[in-house]
C-alpha cells in the first residue's frame, strides 16, 4: 500500500510538472497580409458622429486604482458637460484616449463598452480587491504548476483575471469592428530599450503581428505590470510578410541624429523590430517606466503623426488635451533616520521615483509646443495687419496650414487642489489595486471637481459652447 501511494504521488508529480512545462502565455499571431493592422489604426478610423473639428484627447496616468477612479471621475464630468443645445456632451467628442497602467483599465473599459462604464465598472474593477484575487489565484495548486513554466508567469494569471472578469474576452479585432471613437492607445514599456510601446495596429506592424486577435486585457496587463510585483508580458517579433518594416518616415528620421535627436531616437526605437534575429521576442512592463502620463503618445501624434496630418489638412479647428495625472506624494519618514532605508523601500522608490519625477515637465513641454503654434498664428496675423496698414501693395503672407487653431491643455493633478487637507488626503493614497469604497468614491468626486475648476477647461467651455 505505501508503495502504491508513492507511485500515485510520483504519477501526480510528473503529471503536474508536465502540465506546468506545457503552460504557455497566449502568443500574439503573425500578420498574414499587410492591411490586417489597418483596421486598428487611428488614421483609418472614421466615426461620422464625432467630427475632427473639436478634437478631444484624454490621457490617463498610472497609479493603480487611484488613477483608474480619478480617470472615471473625469469621464463622468465630461458626460455631464453639454457643448451645444442638442445636448451633445463633451464625452461624445473624445477622439483619443492614451493610457498607462491603472488608467488603462478605465480607458480600455470605456472604449470597449461606452457609457456602460457608468453602470458596472465600479463593481467590476474600482471597488474590487484585485491584489487579493491575484494572490489567491497564485495560491491555487493548479496554478503553482503552471507557474513553474518559464513561459507562464504572474502577469499571465493577472491577464486571465482581467480578461474573464473585466474585459469580457474582448480583442482588438472586436474593438476595431465597433469603428467608433475614441481611439485607444494603451502604453507599455519595452524592457530592452526602455522605450514606449503602444498597443496599436501601427506598432504591431513593426512586430509583423496581427493586433486583431490580441486580447485587450493582455495589453492592459502589460501596461500595468508594476516592476518587481509583476513579471513582463512577452510578445513574438515576427518577420514582416511584405519585406521591410522600416517606413519612409523612419528612413528620413534615421538621418537626423544631429538635426533632431527626438525624431532620430523614435525611429531608432522602431528599427530594432526589423532585426527579428537579434530581437525575436519583446518583453513589456508598466507603461509608467517610459511615460507615466500617456502624454508621449500624444506628443508623437501631434508632432509627426495623425494629429499633425489632421491639423495640416485643416480638419481640426480646436484641440483640447486633458491630462489626468494621479501622481501622489506620500509622506516618507526615512529622512529622519541616519541609517539608509531598507531594500523594500529602496526598491519601491527606485521603481516609482523615475515614473513621476518629470511628469510635470512632460506637460510643460507639450503646453510649450501648443503655445508655439499660437504664437506663430499671432505673428502672421500681426504682420499682416502691419502690412495692410503701411505697405502700398496688398501682399498676403502665406497662411498657416490648418488656419487659426484654438488649443487648450488641461492638466489635472491633486496639487491643483487649494484645500491643503484635501490635497494631503489624495496625495497620501497608495498605489495599489485595493482601495476602500470610500476612497474610490472620493477620487471619483475629485476627478470631476478638478476638471470643472480648471481655468483652461473653463476657458474652453466659454469659448466653444454653441
Amino acid at each position, binding site marked *: 500500500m505505501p508503495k502504491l501511494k508513492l507511485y500515485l504521488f510520483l504519477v501526480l508529480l510528473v503529471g503536474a510538472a508536465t502540465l506546468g512545462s506545457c503552460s504557455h502565455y497566449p502568443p500574439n499571431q503573425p500578420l498574414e497580409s499587410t492591411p490586417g493592422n489597418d483596421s486598428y489604426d487611428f488614421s483609418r478610423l472614421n466615426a461620422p458622429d464625432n467630427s475632427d473639428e473639436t478634437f478631444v484627447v484624454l490621457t490617463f496616468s498610472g497609479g493603480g486604482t487611484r488613477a483608474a477612479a480619478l480617470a472615471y471621475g473625469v469621464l463622468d464630468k465630461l458626460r455631464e458637460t453639454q457643448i451645444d443645445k442638442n445636448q451633445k456632451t463633451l464625452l461624445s467628442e473624445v477622439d483619443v484616449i492614451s493610457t498607462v497602467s491603472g488608467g488603462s483599465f478605465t480607458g480600455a473599459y470605456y472604449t470597449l463598452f461606452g457609457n456602460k462604464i457608468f453602470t458596472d465598472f465600479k463593481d467590476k474593477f474600482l471597488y474590487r480587491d484585485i491584489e487579493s484575487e491575484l494572490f489567491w489565484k497564485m495560491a491555487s495548486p493548479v496554478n503553482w504548476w503552471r507557474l513553474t513554466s518559464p513561459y507562464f508567469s504572474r502577469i499571465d494569471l493577472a491577464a486571465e483575471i482581467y480578461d474573464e472578469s473585466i474585459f469580457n474576452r474582448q480583442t482588438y479585432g472586436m474593438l476595431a469592428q465597433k469603428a467608433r471613437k475614441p481611439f485607444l492607445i494603451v502604453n507599455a514599456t519595452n524592457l530592452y530599450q526602455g522605450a514606449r510601446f503602444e498597443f496599436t495596429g501601427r506598432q504591431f506592424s513593426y512586430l509583423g503581428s496581427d493586433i486583431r486577435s490580441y486580447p485587450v486585457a493582455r495589453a492592459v496587463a502589460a501596461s500595468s505590470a508594476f516592476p518587481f510585483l509583476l513579471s513582463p508580458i512577452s510578445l513574438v517579433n515576427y518577420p514582416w510578410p511584405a519585406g521591410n518594416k522600416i517606413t*519612409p*518616415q523612419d528612413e*528620413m*528620421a534615421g*538621418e*537626423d541624429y544631429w*538635426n*533632431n535627436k527626438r*525624431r*532620430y531616437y523614435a525611429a531608432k526605437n522602431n528599427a530594432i523590430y526589423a532585426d527579428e534575429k537579434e530581437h525575436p521576442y519583446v518583453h513589456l512592463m508598466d507603461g509608467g517606466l517610459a511615460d507615466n502620463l500617456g502624454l508621449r503618445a500624444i506628443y508623437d501624434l501631434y*508632432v*509627426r503623426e495623425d494629429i*499633425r*496630418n489632421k*491639423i*495640416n*489638412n485643416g480638419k481640426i479647428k480646436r484641440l483640447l488635451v486633458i491630462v489626468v495625472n494621479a501622481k501622489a506624494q506620500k509622506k516618507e519618514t526615512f529622512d529622519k533616520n541616519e541609517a539608509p532605508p531598507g531594500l523594500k523601500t529602496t526598491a519601491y522608490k527606485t521603481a516609482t521615483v523615475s515614473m513621476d519625477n518629470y511628469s510635470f515637465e512632460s506637460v510643460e513641454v507639450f503646453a510649450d*509646443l501648443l503655445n*508655439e*503654434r499660437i504664437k*506663430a*498664428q499671432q*505673428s*502672421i496675423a500681426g*504682420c499682416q495687419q502691419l502690412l495692410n496698414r503701411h505697405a502700398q501693395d496688398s501682399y498676403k*503672407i*502665406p*497662411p*498657416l*496650414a*490648418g488656419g487659426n487653431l484654438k488649443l487648450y491643455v488641461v492638466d489635472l493633478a491633486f496639487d491643483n487642489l487649494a484645500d491643503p487637507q484635501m490635497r494631503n488626503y489624495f496625495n497620501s493614497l497608495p498605489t495599489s489595486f485595493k482601495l476602500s469604497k470610500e476612497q474610490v468614491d472620493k477620487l471619483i468626486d475629485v476627478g470631476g471637481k478638478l476638471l470643472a475648476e480648471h481655468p483652461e477647461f473653463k476657458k474652453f467651455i466659454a469659448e466653444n459652447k454653441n
Partner: protein
Amino acid sequence: MEYLLVNYPEDREVLIDTILQGRTNEAIEVEKGTHLISLKSPPLNFRPKQKKITLAGTSALTPQEVTFAKT
C-alpha cells in the same frame, strides 16, 4: 516645429515623407529634420519629382521654401 512653404503655380496637395500634409502656397508646420517633399499625383506635371530637404531654423514668417515647376 519648423515651417515649409511649397511653391507651385497651382493649388495642390503636398506630400511630406509620402503622407499628404497641407497644400502648396501655405506655411506647413513640420517636425525639424530631414524630409522628402513632393506633390500629390497624378497628374505628374511638376519637376523635380521630389526634393529632399533639412528643415531647421525657420519661423512662420520665414519658412523654408521649396519650388516645383509646372511641366
